[in-house]
């Protein structure tokens, strides 16, 4: 058996299956977005050109979804990365090995909870009548907050659950980055009497900078999968206050009117956004090394 033969047999199955599973939907989504196909009306499916995209352009609800998605990205990416960096710095060089191991285990568990379960858990804690948060508010004689049914607080309340799951996990990963830093420059700086703050600013931070940035990119992409959490907690409501693009695409394309072509046009836009971000990530990482 030659090397070439082995190489081909080992990589062809993946290329074939992943190719089918990814190229097919790409073509299908583009095709669907150019016709007028509905799941509930048989016989529909005429070619309509860019009509779906033109409709998107004037669809206020789509622009709202785009705006909510951007807010969601900003809140969850900044919130979870910021908190994760703080947590990692709090753990780094401050705690013993056993304590650190327990902490990392405790911090990882919330991240692997199925989003469905995480969503319900917090929805119950947010509940106006039965929830813990409002109980504590009432103990403090503060007015009740309808966390999930007030359009001012709903998005932030759901985002907090995402931040809870992600900041803890990210802090463990950032801790790993910090611990991979060689000892010498830090010890040298400490001998020179550098304060902890300056140490972090001038030595630790520049070393882990590219690692942190790649985590930011990853979190941006992971945050685009917000569907499950929002669906469980608010279903996009109240009104459309927490309706991100995936929720809108789902409700227009499948749940409510089965307008699969219109949904597909939104899919395609999401696809383009993701590919752009992923390409940036890849370029950036190759540039760094």
């Amino acid at each position, binding site marked *: 058996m030659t090397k070439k033969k082995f190489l081909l047999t080992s990589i062809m199955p993946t290329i074939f299956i992943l190719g089918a599973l990814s190229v097919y939907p790409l073509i299908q989504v583009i095709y669907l977005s150019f016709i007028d196909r509905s799941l509930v009306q048989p016989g529909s499916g005429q070619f309509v050109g860019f009509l779906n995209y033109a409709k998107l352009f004037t669809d206020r609800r789509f622009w709202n979804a785009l705006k909510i998605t951007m807010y969601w990205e900003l809140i969850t990416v900044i919130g979870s990365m910021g908190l994760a960096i703080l947590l990692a710095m709090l753990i780094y060089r401050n705690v013993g090995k056993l304590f650190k191991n327990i902490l990392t285990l405790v911090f990882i568990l919330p991240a692997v909870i199925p989003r469905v379960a*995480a969503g*319900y858990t917090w929805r*119950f804690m947010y509940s106006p009548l*039965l929830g813990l948060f409002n109980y504590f508010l009432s103990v403090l004689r503060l007015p009740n907050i309808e966390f999930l049914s007030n359009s001012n607080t709903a998005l932030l309340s759901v985002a907090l659950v995402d931040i809870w799951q992600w900041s803890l996990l990210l802090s463990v990963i950032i801790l790993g980055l910090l611990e991979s830093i060689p000892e010498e420059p830090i010890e040298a700086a400490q001998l020179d009497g550098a304060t902890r703050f300056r140490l972090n600013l001038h030595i630790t931070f520049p070393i882990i900078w590219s690692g942190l940035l790649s985590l930011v990119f990853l979190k941006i992409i992971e945050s685009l999968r917000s569907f499950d959490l929002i669906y469980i907690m608010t279903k996009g409501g109240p009104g459309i206050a927490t309706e991100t693009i*995936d929720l809108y695409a789902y409700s227009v394309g499948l749940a409510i009117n089965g307008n699969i072509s219109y*949904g597909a046009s939104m899919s395609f836009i*999401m696809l383009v956004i993701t590919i752009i971000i992923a390409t940036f990530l890849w370029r950036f990482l190759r540039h760094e090394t």
Partner: protein
Amino acid sequence: MKHKKSITEKISRYLLIIIAFFAIFPVLWTFINSFKCLTDIITPVPKIFFNPTLQNYVEILKLSSLKNALLSSFIISTSSVILGFIIGIPFAYSIARFQFKARENLRFWVITLRMLPPVATIFAYIYLWINIGLLDTYISVIFTYLLITIPTIIWLSIEPFRNVPVEIEEAAMLEGVSYFQVFFKFALPIAWPTLIGGVLFAFILVWNEFFIALTLTSQRMTLPVAVGAYAVVGMQMDWGQLSASMILLSIPPFILAGLFRKSLSSYFIIKI
């Protein structure tokens, strides 16, 4: 100097204990609630002391819909992970071991697939499975999940294969052992202890998956979809039973993540 440092250490330690408590609290609270009867849950003042009961677990395990969903979840997750393993592992090995022209582009392609948001492809899949009459079957979900399991397993297996000492393989080759035998008899068994983490991580991902399962299944719904269905039914939710089913749903990822947490972090660090 030394004295000052120990104070910051102490403060950080107490702070971390408090943070760890809050981090795990929502999980604990759900766990506690799953042993309460409904009257102990629906109280204006949350109850910490109550008569623990297994009633919620007994009730949900009587529900045929939940039992079916548990079975579906096991069948779908296990099959898609095993298939993903069989298909992805040789690919990861070749990427780790051999230099060839398309290598870097193939790696990039595999990673981007893992990053695709499900909403970008879901309409194509639902259209496909409707057209070939396989919507709401195990097969359709298992195949769609290969898009998650294959890239994840490849992603997490390249590094373990790189860590297999190349000398062992070369020595075997000199003895006249074929590439296939080197892979099966040396590379795979040596890398196995570190490979398993990635495989189990892929299992967690598909076990937890909600969006694709929600759109592709109704009779064959998986456990997250079955638990998620409470959101549709429920004005008046039975929080006790819901808590019990959430715990049931979370047990497999908890156990796997606890055992293999090291591979969890390597998933998020991209090494070129």
